[in-house]
């Protein structure tokens, strides 16, 4: 238990650092911005109470906001995303009691289900974030382009991170 709490703290720090130092600067074709830190929200165990998920999501969004000067935008989007996580997962994986490991990952869900889960969460988050962001400017074409481009990029990078983490774990077991 303590070990997994430590692992989550480490994951939090690494994802925030990676987002603010690397991924915030990656802005492909003036449209696609990867929002990779939501991997933390996806990774939280399904058995965790909603109050904790909400608290951690809010704190994560707030931390990212302080670093990237988007005060409130990520905090709001993360808070809205947190309660949608389980319903989305149930859509593709109805019997969550069957999970061998309570943390959703490629290994515990299977590659196909996890891919569907990851693309849905990425798309949902990009819709939330870019809609909140565009309160000031409204340009529907650019908004849709940014949502689509960013969710695809976020999805690809999240799949890479997940396979990287699972790969390391299975190596340790050997």
């Amino acid at each position: 238990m303590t070990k997994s709490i430590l692992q989550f703290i480490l994951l939090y720090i690494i994802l925030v650092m990676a987002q603010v130092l690397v991924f915030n600067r990656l802005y492909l074709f003036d449209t696609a911005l990867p929002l990779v830190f939501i991997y933390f929200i996806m990774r939280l165990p399904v058995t965790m109470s909603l109050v904790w998920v909400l608290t951690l999501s809010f704190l994560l969004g707030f931390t990212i906001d302080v670093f990237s000067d988007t005060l409130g935008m990520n905090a709001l989007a993360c808070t809205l995303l947190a309660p949608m996580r389980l319903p989305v997962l149930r859509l593709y994986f109805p019997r969550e009691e069957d999970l061998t490991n309570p943390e959703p990952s490629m290994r515990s869900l299977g590659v196909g289900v996890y891919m569907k889960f990851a693309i849905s969460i990425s798309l949902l988050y990009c819709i939330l974030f870019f809609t909140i962001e565009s309160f000031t400017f409204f340009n529907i074409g650019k908004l849709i382009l940014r949502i689509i481009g960013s969710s695809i990029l976020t999805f690809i990078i999240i799949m890479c991170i997940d396979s990287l983490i699972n790969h390391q774990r299975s190596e340790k077991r050997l």
Partner: protein
Amino acid sequence: MRNLFDFLLRFRAWIVFIIYVVLSCILLFSGNPYQRHVYMTSASQVSASVYDVGQSVTGYFHLRSINDDLQRRNAQLESEVIALRSTVNSLRLELSSDSITIAEPLKDFDFILASVINNSITHPHNFITISKGEADGVKPEMGVMDQNGIVGVVDVTGKHYSRIMSLLNPDFRLSCKLKNSDVIGSLVWDGKSPREALLEEIPKQAVYAPGDTIITSGYSAMFPDGIPVATVMSNERTHDDNFFTLRVKLLTDFTKLSTVQLVVSNNRDEIKKLEPNNIK
């Protein structure tokens, strides 16, 4: 009472959810960026020191192209110095030396050099963080430029770091003029591309051609007169009959900022006292 506790317990997740949503909305809509506290920005001690570490790695990435820019600027300034020196000499020959006054628009300004530790171009409102703060004499509303053109204006200052409101932020309007005709307009970013912006409120009768240079007007006391800002690309359609809008290409490359100069206006306090409500 028991019922109330039951109710709170049953809906605690929803209550927590609503509290967080309200909290983020307060943060999101807390209005004026000048009133925001430095702790909640990228200029705070914690976030700025993280960016400092990142900058120590990424700071080397664009050195080659920045060096090219500096060489070009250097050559340009050198040729200007030579031209000015020859003008001064020829004038000195014609007139007695004590009657010559040379216009020096830069004499009222000093510069502070600072390195950029964080820069965003991806949001509708962009900010830059630099590694100089109040301890180095940085004050809010100072103008910021780099070797190519205008970068922005100082927004929030911490002790050793400050946040700059980038030119890529629609809250920042810069008074500019066309170099050839001295027609005044207002430069503002429209959020489309980090390389382009709009020059608004140009009178209908103004004459321009694509490729014309746009320079600072010197009306705002933030920047000296005559700093190149952008070049004209094309005309933009507007609904207003008396004014038109130009799409311009910014000379500053916001994707590769590294070192910036902060403009210290020696007359700023005096000008501000005279125009209490004009400088926005």
